[in-house]
């Protein structure tokens, strides 16, 4: 997992030996809870895979891996957006309804004969506007992130219902169909898109000035301001990123279900936050990775998929997700 430093610090073992050999350093690491906390998502994912594979050998079949990856794609994209926001110590509760609004905007544009490209741009623009609005209200209006995005959560889904008159628009398009079923080897197009988004996000967060300023804004807004960083602008930018990524997610969503629905998509909201928490990103801001939330999203998807394979009733899935997230949150208490 990449850290903000790019250099791994030795574990903060309580007792330091005089000349720690490599072996001792590793022993110290393994005893350090912080180490486990940072890698909680990856370890959890490995454990889940082992357990599910032992219980059902089709779990690791190519077909199942392929469908898990596709199922994870939208969540990965949303989790990346959520990561930017949470790294500034904010939270975007509206991310899933923004995606719904994007999907409905796509459906309306498409139904009016705007064509695929224009409809996709409309979806991204509509979702991006919600992001800009979130950021502006939070940065300029000085209202808490929680309240603002709770408001836009409701407003965006309401707007989606109004625009769609509460009805889904079926979209039959060969390109969209290809987008949802095609791909390279076991990697469907949605997964490839999600991977590109994740890599780009990692580069932005750790290899650009903007990324450093995002981390600084979350870590210490006062220090960032004193050094001349406009934390307001950074806030607006991260919410806009979250909105635009929700727009991208909406296109994949429409492709996947073959329709633009004004559905609530609540699970996407909860899971996007859960993936970020699982990924070891601090809700207090200032420290985050992209790898962590991506693994978190994979873990949540594998969990649901595995339970389904084992024939566990759907009713148990939210319960299982909830337990995993709370356990992960407990682990983050031991983060260095």
């Amino acid at each position: 997992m990449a850290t903000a430093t790019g250099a791994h610090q030795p574990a903060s073992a309580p007792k330091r030996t005089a000349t720690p050999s490599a072996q001792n350093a590793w022993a110290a690491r393994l005893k350090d809870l912080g180490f486990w906390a940072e890698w909680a998502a990856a370890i959890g994912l490995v454990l889940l895979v082992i357990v599910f594979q032992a219980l059902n050998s089709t779990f690791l079949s190519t077909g199942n891996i392929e469908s898990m990856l596709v199922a994870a794609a939208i969540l990965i994209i949303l989790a990346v957006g959520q990561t930017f926001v949470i790294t500034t110590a904010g939270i975007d509760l509206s991310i899933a309804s923004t995606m719904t609004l994007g999907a409905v905007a796509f459906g309306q544009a498409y139904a009016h004969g705007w064509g695929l490209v224009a409809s996709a741009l409309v979806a991204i623009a509509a979702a991006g506007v919600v992001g800009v609005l979130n950021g502006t209200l939070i940065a300029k209006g000085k209202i808490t992130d929680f309240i603002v995005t709770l408001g836009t959560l409701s407003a965006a889904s309401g707007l989606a219902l109004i625009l769609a008159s509460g009805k889904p628009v079926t979209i039959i398009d060969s390109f969209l169909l290809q987008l949802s079923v095609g791909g390279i080897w076991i990697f469907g197009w949605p997964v490839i898109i999600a991977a590109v988004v994740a890599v780009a996000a990692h580069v932005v967060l750790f290899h650009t000035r903007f990324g450093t300023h995002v981390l600084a804004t979350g870590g210490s807004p006062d220090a960032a301001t004193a050094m001349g960083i406009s934390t307001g602008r950074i806030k607006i930018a991260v919410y806009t990123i979250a909105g635009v990524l929700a727009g991208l997610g909406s296109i994949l969503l429409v492709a996947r279900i073959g329709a633009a629905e004004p559905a609530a998509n609540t699970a996407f909201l909860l899971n996007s936050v859960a993936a970020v928490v699982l990924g070891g990103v601090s809700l207090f801001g200032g420290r985050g990775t992209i790898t962590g939330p991506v693994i978190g999203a994979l873990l949540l998807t594998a969990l649901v998929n595995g339970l389904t394979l084992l024939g566990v009733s759907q009713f148990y899935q939210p319960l299982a997700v909830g337990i995993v997230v709370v356990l992960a949150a407990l682990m983050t208490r031991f983060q260095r």
Partner: protein
Amino acid sequence: MTSPEPTATTLQTGSPLQTGDVLVDVEDVSLSFGSVRALVDVSLTIRQGEITALVGDNGAGKSTLVRCISGIHRPDSGHIVFDGTKTDFHSPEDARGAGIETVHQNLALVEDLTVWQNLFLNRELVRRFGPIAFLDRKRMQQRATEMVSTLAVNVPAVSSRVRRLSGGQRQAVSICRAAGFSSRLVIMDEPTAALGVQETAKVEELILRLRDEGHAVLLISHNFAQVMRLSDHVWVMRAGRCVGGRRTADTTGEEIVALITGAQAA
């Protein structure tokens, strides 16, 4: 005229100012926080190539004045003239752009970032590939190591997170940052408050070196011996007002104390 100059920040070279010329002129600056009148008609000057000390009891308004000069607060009334032009700083970035670097009393470091990331915060070195600029992490780490070594304070590797540093080490990083950039005025709000004897001596050496290199330094300190030892001029604040100033050579510690407590009128 500069100490290590780690960025391409434009250095306003060829300033016509000579040592002893007025660099900063604070004119009747007032600032209130609600009913608290933190600054009341404060007027003072800071001269090029000098160490100007600002003293006063806790809550006298020293840090608030610093924050006005470094662009964090905007005065309610009055104004600040910097190098002959009336300033209108809307943000710390404006002040930094003009060449004012500050070591804030609360340090202004981001704990979760590394030493080098803090040193280069908002002054990051980048490499451009067409329209995209990527951080030049290696060069920043290298330069950061150089910057820290000039202070010779025992700071751990520049890749450690600030969270793991001691109070004194943090102070050192903060001072490095202010001194490292091509600044015209370096403001230090109680820079040695958390430092040990040896580190204090190092910082004092650095302050003198900054002056000798032609920077103006504004030093806020509760340590009278230090003020008498280092400064060329002392300004005294009491309850939000600037109650007087003296050339350090023409005054005594007792007189300054009397001004601070109000036992002596200016």
